[in-house]
């Protein structure tokens, strides 16, 4: 039954991908890419990758759609007619596809217990997590502790991306520009969305905190929580106007959050070094190594969440603060 459902979802993914390529209306393309992400999230969930599914749903289907729409508001919603040189593009794509299909013949079959990925280090992670870290969600243990250095790199990628977008779009400072109705008023005249949005915003924030702090026990963690937190603030900004949202969390805070989360993560690593361990070794943070691991994971997940929230909200505000090109 699961196989049938996977095949259905994968077929829908291909159909959606073809539609995204074919449709010239960019607004429809953005909606379709949201649907693509949601289908992909369902697919990840079928593969028992709940953490990845949650990330894909929150970032791919949620935040990315909003950011694409903000970008569309500044440009046009029609794709330009394709130029020439399509033959060359076709040859490149066909060659790459054939190479990848050829390479896939060497891959172990899906779910093969003898596959290298199940033989190499995964069994060690599964065994060691219980004794050394003692949290039920092995994914969080791998992400935050065993491979904490990789995750630090990811946080700095997010941080760098945020800084890059701010450099390109320009973080407005000083006196505010001429505001249109939308920026000061939002959807304040629309009663139903406004009432419901105000009703739901605290619950979305609460859910973000749940995802943040429940990451040790179930699917979740800083990346997902940051995206959900940012989504709640973006909803508030759409309903009440950008000005009110910036009063709630000012730009200077956002810059501080963007840098501060990454800094908190690195500081935990340096603290481990100062207390006599290795960089990002949390065992030395407390008397009991397991308790130290818990403290370290909590702190670095908080750092991840803060940076992701800061970057996403900075990008959103950078988009909405710009005039149409």
């Amino acid at each position: 039954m699961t196989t049938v459902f996977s095949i259905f979802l994968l077929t829908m993914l291909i159909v959606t991908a073809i539609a995204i390529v074919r449709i010239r209306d960019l607004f429809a393309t953005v909606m379709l890419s949201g649907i693509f992400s949601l289908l992909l999230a369902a697919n990840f969930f079928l593969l028992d990758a709940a953490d990845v599914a949650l990330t894909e749903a929150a970032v791919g289907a949620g935040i990315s759609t909003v950011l694409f729409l903000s970008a569309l508001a500044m440009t046009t919603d029609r794709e330009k007619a394709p130029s020439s040189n399509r033959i060359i593009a076709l040859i490149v794509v066909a060659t790459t596809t054939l190479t990848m299909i050829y390479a896939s013949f060497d891959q172990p079959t899906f779910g093969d217990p003898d596959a290298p990925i199940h033989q190499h280090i995964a069994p060690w992670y599964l065994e060691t997590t219980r004794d050394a870290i003692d949290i039920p969600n092995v994914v969080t243990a791998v992400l935050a502790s065993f491979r904490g250095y990789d995750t630090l790199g990811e946080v700095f990628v997010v941080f760098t991306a945020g800084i890059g977008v701010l450099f390109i779009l320009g973080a407005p400072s000083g006196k505010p520009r001429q505001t249109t109705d939308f920026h000061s008023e939002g959807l304040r005249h629309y009663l139903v969305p406004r009432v419901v949005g105000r009703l739901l915003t605290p619950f979305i924030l609460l859910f973000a905190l749940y995802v943040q702090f429940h990451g040790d026990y179930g699917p979740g963690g800083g990346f997902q929580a940051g995206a959900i937190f940012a989504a709640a603030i973006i909803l508030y900004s759409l309903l009440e106007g950008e000005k009110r949202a910036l009063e709630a969390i000012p730009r200077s805070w956002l810059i501080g959050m963007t840098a501060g989360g990454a800094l908190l993560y690195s500081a935990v690593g340096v603290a481990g070094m100062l207390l006599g361990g290795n960089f990002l070794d949390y065992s030395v943070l407390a008397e009991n190594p397991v308790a130290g691991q818990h403290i370290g994971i909590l702190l670095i997940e908080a750092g991840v969440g803060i940076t992701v929230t800061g970057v996403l909200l900075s990008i959103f505000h950078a988009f909405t603060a710009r005039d149409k090109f």
Partner: protein
Amino acid sequence: MTLTLLLDIASWLLLSTGGVFVFIGGLGALRMPDLYTRMHAASVTDTIGPALIIIGIILQAGLTLASIKLIAILLFLLITGPTASNALASASLLAGNRPEFAKAVTEDEKQ
């Protein structure tokens, strides 16, 4: 034993009725003439359809934490679905997109 059988039958009925509603909603979204009638059909797929399906699943799950989560999801869907429909319809009206029947009425008045 009979209780579980009854619960199974009830949840089976709810699940299949929910599925039928979702199917009808999808059919309507494809076949109706303009945006407003299509939305009217499609709104079935995010109100009564998932409501019946989720209640059907709750009967299967019993009194567990999963049921409470499902009830939370149901409440969320019942609040957000109609709100989204309302926002979409008012946005479409504001953009000057008038329903088919309103156009027909204006044509009649002209004649």
